[in-house]
């Protein structure tokens, strides 16, 4: 076994890197793969909370790098899904505590034991990003359909390309089909036009993401919801399966008023 190492990144904060990492990692574990999700956001760790494993964290990956503990001691095994592990970040350290070479070495140490290693990258383009990206072969870039997020994604894609990562694939997160239909939100194709990279999935805006974060349970583990479906599809595509994009319009819930509005504006014809 030699793991594929994938960094999840975005440039801009708050677009759903950590949520995406947790859900895709859980989905791949559900499909029978052995997966470790590494929280590379030293000093601002959150992957443990999103995965609902915060109470079981003892050591972190800086402890492993500094040889305070063994790798096996730092790995937190998720008891809900076989084959899913978390390697937490240190909360009381800063991003300078690691360098890219150490990240590469850490990934190499884990590669033989896993099918997938996910590196959940901090926001920004500084040291934390460079550390996380150094260890990875592939990248998932997360963006939302908003100018600031797409702009930052463009920056990050340029940097990942110059680092030789391949493939670099895009997740469009928090898309609202209603607003796209009404011409008030950038559509999937608008974003792909300007970024010109491969799309691996579109995740619709979904209140269940907040519920699952509250509950500390990635939604791909149990929930049947639009965003969970989208993340399961992304996991399948990572495995090389040809899964068609979800019909997001069927998730567009419309009220009476917006139907009339669409009728009058001539957008309702289809």
């Amino acid at each position, binding site marked *: 076994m030699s793991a594929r190492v994938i960094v999840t990144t975005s440039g801009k904060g708050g677009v759903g890197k950590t949520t995406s990492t947790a859900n895709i990692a859980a989905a791949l574990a559900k499909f029978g793969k052995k997966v470790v999700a590494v929280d590379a956001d030293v000093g601002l760790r959150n992957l443990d909370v999103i995965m609902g494993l915060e109470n079981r964290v003892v050591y972190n990956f800086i402890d492993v790098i500094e040889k305070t503990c063994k790798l096996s001691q730092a790995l937190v095994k998720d008891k809900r899904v076989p084959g899913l592990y978390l390697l937490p970040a240190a909360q009381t350290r800063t991003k300078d505590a690691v360098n890219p070479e150490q990240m590469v070495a850490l990934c190499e140490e884990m590669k033989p034991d896993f099918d997938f290693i996910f590196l959940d990258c901090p926001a920004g383009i500084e040291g934390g990003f460079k550390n996380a990206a150094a260890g990875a072969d592939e990248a998932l870039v997360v963006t939302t359909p*908003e*100018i600031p997020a*797409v*702009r930052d994604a*463009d*920056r990050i894609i*340029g940097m990942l390309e110059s680092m030789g990562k391949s493939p670099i694939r895009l997740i469009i997160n928090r898309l609202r089909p209603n*607003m*796209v239909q*009404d*011409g*008030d*939100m*950038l*559509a999937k194709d*608008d974003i792909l036009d*300007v970024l010109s990279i491969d799309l691996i999935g579109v995740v619709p805006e979904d209140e269940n993401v907040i519920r699952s974060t509250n509950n500390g349970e990635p939604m791909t583990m149990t929930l049947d919801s639009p965003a969970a479906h989208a993340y399961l599809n992304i996991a399948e595509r990572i495995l090389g399966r040809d899964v068609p994009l979800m019909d997001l319009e069927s998730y567009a819930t419309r009220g009476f*008023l917006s139907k*009339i*509005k669409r009728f*009058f*504006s001539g957008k309702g014809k289809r």
Partner: protein
Amino acid sequence: MGFLSKFFGISSEDGSSQKAKDRLKIVLIHDRTDISPQLLESLRNEIVDVLAKYMDIDMKKIEIDLDHDENAVALVANIPILHIKRGKVAEL
């Protein structure tokens, strides 16, 4: 009808996504051509080297710069030629 349109929030324009698309494109054009002075200098030197093979150019009056306007970015070069090298023209 005007009243109805107003009531339902319909304008004759498209939604705001078109505006977002246009603004995004322009922002990215500018971001992607954010060239450092060092890079521009080495670009300038290489262009001059190539041109110098074919013609004598006035090194003192060369201007190479990026010109940003609202919708596009252009590489604008102003390179005064002193002579075309005769030998080169004959070879061609």
